[in-house]
């Protein structure tokens, strides 16, 4: 078994009186897709934000490739090779697709003090990466505000896939996507994983998780309910874990089928 790229040990995160994370351990290895599941408010987004350097953990340890690491900002984690699609996307509607795609890591050409962004290259890559995800952009100069919700989500995913050198974190990437784009994202996860990149995949959809996941960790109210490997858990068990058991069975009964 390969060593984890990132290992998070008993992470706690408090927001004032709110205990968002109460000791969560988690690791991500090269070439695997580790799914993070759990109800609304379970702490999934908070957890991956500590991994991405947005939040500093109140307690706990983060190891990056075996050495203790403290990311002070998202920039540090990006530089270490971790790319993230945030649930709120981190897209700026007033700016063009290209400017958003490259934001924070713009390609440059020329010499100081006349270094400038290489927009030809940037536009080309943006269009190509979007096409790979199944979206034909009208123009790379188009403002993100003119895109549909799913198209925006695709830009965010394409950007993270392009820059995720070692770890790719996806926080509910498929929530606004159509059938074809969802299939595309799932197959992209598979492709990326085969390149040896570790993928952290947050979703509420058990079928999506089982389609690509190698391991599954369920969070509930800031704690892990445990981690299971592929084949060690049935979809029903996973569903129950996520939603906290009996109530779910009752609900399903009254709705007459699997939710």
């Amino acid at each position, binding site marked *: 078994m390969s060593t984890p790229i990132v290992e998070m040990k008993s992470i706690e995160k408090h927001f004032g009186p709110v205990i968002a994370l109460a000791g969560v351990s988690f690791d991500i290895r090269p070439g695997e897709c580790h799914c993070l599941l759990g109800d609304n408010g379970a702490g999934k987004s908070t957890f991956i934000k500590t991994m*991405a350097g*947005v939040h500093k953990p109140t307690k706990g340890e983060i190891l990056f490739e075996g050495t203790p690491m403290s990311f002070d*900002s*998202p*920039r540090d984690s*990006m*530089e270490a090779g971790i790319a*993230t699609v*945030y649930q*709120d*996307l*981190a*897209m*700026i*509607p*007033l*700016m063009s697709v290209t*400017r958003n795609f*490259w*934001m*924070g*890591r*713009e390609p*440059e050409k020329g010499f100081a003090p006349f*270094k*400038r*962004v290489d927009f030809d290259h940037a536009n080309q890559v943006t*269009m190509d990466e979007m096409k790979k995800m199944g979206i*034909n952009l*009208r123009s790379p100069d188009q*403002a993100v*505000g*003119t*895109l549909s919700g799913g198209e925006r989500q695709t830009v965010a995913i394409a950007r993270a896939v392009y820059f995720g050198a070692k770890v790719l974190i996806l926080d509910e990437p498929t929530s606004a996507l159509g059938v074809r784009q969802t299939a595309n994202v799932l197959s992209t996860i598979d492709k990326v994983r085969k390149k040896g990149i570790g993928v952290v995949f947050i979703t509420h959809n058990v079928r999506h998780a089982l389609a690509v996941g190698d391991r599954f960790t369920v969070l509930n109210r800031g704690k892990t309910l445990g981690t299971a490997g592929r084949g060690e858990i049935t979809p029903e068990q996973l569903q129950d874990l996520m939603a906290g058991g009996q109530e779910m069975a009752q609900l399903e009964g009254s709705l007459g089928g699997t939710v």
Partner: protein
Amino acid sequence: MTDERLREVSRLRRAMIRPELGAIAGTILVFVFFLMIAGDSGMFGPKGIQNWTVVSAQFAIIAVGACLLMIAGEFDLSVGSMIGFAGVVIAILSVQWGWPVWASIIVAFAICLALGFVNGVLVIKTGLPSFIVTLAFLYILRGLTIWLSILTTRQTIIGGVKDVAEGDPLAWAFGGVILKPVFQWLADIGLIDTFTRGTRAGQPVVEGVPMLVVWALALIVFGHFLLTKTKFGNWIFAAGGDKQAARYVGVPVDRVKILMFMFTAFCACVFATCQVMEFGSAAADRGLLKEFEAIICVVIGGALLTGGYGSVIGAALGALIFGVVQQGLFFSGAESSLFRVFLGTILILAVILNTYIRRMITGER
């Protein structure tokens, strides 16, 4: 690559749909208007052109700073007070304390950059709107300026800068005139009038291009290049567009904002230094209302008050409109109070047009 859902957009239309459109239209309108009502008043003769060019350049210098800062999502209302403050610092150091003028100018710039830094840090650390923080500095700096001036000279105007600035290289960089031979030549071939009497007989009525105008052009080119072509420019847009999203992808938002406060202060100091060199004096009431005039230029130029969108070229055109209207009404002999009426009207028209264009570009709803 084509998209079947995209209607063929004519090239003209595409060229038209740009953030500066409101300012371009306003500029054309203003020039047509004054060519009609003041075409034969000398406003478009060499002396007249120089007159409104200098005034527009003054507006442009502070508008460039205000523009980049506004796009980064912040305001600086202390610009006007900083202009008065920097001027008085230069005059006290050079005239009262007998420092070389170049040293006084350098100190004034250092103080202004430090003040910009303090503005920025306070806004970032307190999380208060920059509107409030810099409003406090509007009062603090104006008060300090008057107090310092009265404390050292017992008056609010400090003269005598012209004499001490004689031959000073840095003073020339702000108060000098370039391209004199070209203008002499233009006079020789009869394109520019010459003085017919007095000590300057035979010299052209317009001596050359004032350094003030050079500064304005340099700042416009710099600001435009920075904003549209560089990585840092992308960060300016990002910091003002959505600072949380920008932070997520590693943009150092705080650093960008603080640097923009410092750049605005730098522009204010350029303005102040040019003015002191031009008048040969500093006065504690200089720069009054300049912060609002800068903001008006920027908004006429198509920038969004809430940040994340705008254009330096637009802001420069806004400054041109401002300068031409102010001087044009003077040339046409109109009541000077009408200046404000006219300006207010242009402001509204330009902003309506800008809003419409911006919605088309950004899909804002």
